[in-house]
């Protein structure tokens, strides 16, 4: 039975339902209980933004606050997963990966391969990403390309409450290490979400808008910018097909290629940077695998190659918006109706 809840509630519900279903699921990170050991269970923070609120009172032995020691507890997640748990560790901001990246990309990601297939590391790292709340350069980055680059990791970037719940449940049940990216601006986004548990397979894109003139590929928060642009352009007679890959690793290459084969035009919108980012990656995919179908140059819409700035005026200029997406589409679209 679907009802409308927020992206944040959808994540919370996925965690609670999986913890009820499987006693091997443990949740830990900085302040995920937040008030552990006090009398006021109900007042426990549940994370700095309250995403894990209510989990600790229900599962006091399986929801653990950690020291501010990302290397230790992200590494502990890898060790716990190797020994049979299904840890969901929270890396509060993905920007903090700088202090624990070894545990992710040299340890967890490589165990299965290095050990000749004889290891399984079913862990999830939930992490916040993205600009938009004036959090400045060290709390605002969109770093999923760094993880997408690493063989052995799966990378999930949900854009809606429905996807957030289904993809997180899939991530927890998945037997490989998964990095789960939550856009902080999307936490309050409302959407229809079934009450019961369900999974969304990795590597299956969602077609958010159907259209025949231009293919727009967008991820995370940018899906909404792309959809908004598509609605504007529809009124101008340009039909945009908006594709949300939902996971960057694995990437649903076929859905993107099939769409471009039909439209002949591609715009990629991404909040990660222009160099070695998802926009460059998807543009390369289409240029190498569907060049013959292209009837116009590929356009990419990304932030500039700069850190994320603090000042609201600068940050707003940094983040791609619907107007920039629409402009990119117009620069390559032929209005069929004219």
């Amino acid at each position: 039975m679907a009802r409308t809840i927020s992206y944040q509630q959808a994540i919370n519900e996925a965690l609670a339902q999986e913890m009820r279903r499987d006693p091997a699921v443990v949740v830990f990170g900085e302040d995920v209980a937040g008030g552990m050991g006090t009398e006021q269970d109900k007042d426990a923070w549940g994370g700095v933004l309250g995403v894990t609120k209510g989990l600790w009172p229900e599962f006091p032995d399986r929801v653990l606050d950690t020291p501010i020691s990302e290397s230790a507890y992200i590494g502990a997640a890898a060790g716990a997963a190797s020994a049979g748990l299904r840890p969901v560790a929270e890396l509060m901001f993905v920007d903090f990966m700088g202090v624990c990246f070894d545990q992710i990309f040299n340890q967890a990601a490589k165990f299965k391969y290095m050990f000749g297939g004889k290891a399984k590391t079913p862990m999830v790292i939930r992490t916040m990403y993205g600009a938009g709340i004036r959090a400045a350069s060290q709390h605002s980055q969109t770093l999923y390309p760094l993880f997408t680059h690493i063989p052995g990791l799966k990378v999930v970037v949900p854009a809606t409450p429905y996807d957030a719940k289904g993809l997180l449940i899939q991530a927890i049940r998945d037997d490989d290490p998964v990095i789960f990216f939550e856009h902080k601006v999307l936490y309050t986004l409302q959407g229809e979400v079934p009450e019961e548990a369900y999974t969304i397979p990795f590597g299956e894109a969602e077609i958010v808008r159907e259209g025949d003139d231009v293919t727009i590929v967008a991820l995370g928060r940018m899906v909404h910018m792309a959809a908004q642009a598509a609605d504007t352009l529809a009124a101008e007679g340009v039909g945009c097909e908006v594709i949300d890959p939902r996971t960057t690793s694995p990437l649903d290459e076929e859905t993107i290629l099939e769409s471009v084969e039909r439209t002949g035009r591609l715009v990629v919108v991404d909040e990660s940077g222009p160099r070695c980012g998802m926009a460059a990656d998807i543009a390369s995919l289409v240029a190498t695998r569907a060049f013959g179908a292209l009837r116009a140059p590929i356009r990419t819409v990304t932030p500039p190659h700069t850190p994320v700035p603090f000042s609201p005026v600068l940050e707003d200029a940094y983040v791609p918006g619907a107007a920039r997406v629409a402009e990119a589409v117009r620069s390559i679209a032929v209005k069929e109706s004219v």
Partner: protein
Amino acid sequence: MRTDLHVSGRALAKEDLLRHYRVMRTIREFEERLHLEFATGEIPGFVHLYAGEEAIAAGFCANLRDDDYIASTHRGHGHAIAKGCDVKGMMAEIYGKATGICHGKGGSMHIADLAVGMLGANGIVGGGPPLVCGVGLKARVTGTDQVAVSFTGDGGSNQGTFLESLNLAAVWRLPVVFVVENNGYAESTAPRFHQSGIDVAKRADGFGLPGVVVDGHDFFAVYEAAREAIERARAGGGPSLIECKVLRYYGHFEGDQQSYREPGEVENARATKDCLLLFERSTVNAGIVGEDELRAIDKQVLALIDEAVAEAKQAPDPVPADLLTDVYVSY
């Protein structure tokens, strides 16, 4: 003839003593042989030898069960052998062969076998301590009495991961033991140049944990300290730190010219405090073990290592298609 040796009032039966000797001798023979074989150029990559430190791996693993875990270092052959990894599979792995314990995909620095609780040698200095915290958490959450031990060198003891893990394990009261093998050099740098404070073990005080120093050449000293710490962890008493002072007999890696050593350092250690020598002296002088029994083990171990090398050399390489397998469980 006596049939047991008492360590702090506890009897070590003769068959156990012979078993522990066999573990140490196997490690020594494995490493001495690798030293020779590496020089022929037939072994790919690089290897880091554990010779001289055998009493530590043997003393700790003698106190562990099959369902306990260890995390190791780049100098991991000794830990792997002591925890029960297949010796022939290890040798084939070091030769990069398909029959290797990791099918040739890991090599010397990534020998692992989760089935015997070996979480892996580790190419990253300080990579192991966080992993054993996770195993300790697993034991705590699922209510088992498993214990996890991490081995780290004196070099690794300066990594943030090591210090963070001491704190995390203390805060979560995890059933883990942190072992520092202070073997005289972090790569080529002696502790007086890289380590503040004389004993790494003293760092335990800052975390409210027991920390002790033992002679890493003395199997019985290591065994006793390991037993106490592991039993405490198993009983819910939380983590401990044990620093074993020892000397490695070879370089940081094979081919290391070791210009940083004191003259005669290794020769002196081999002649006066070698772990096998000390073990033999204690057990034979106590009248529990006959010299002939130890020589018989030596012979069997030598034959095993001969076979392991011969088989590794003959074993098939991986096939190119193996490049693409085992990246993910599913993708």
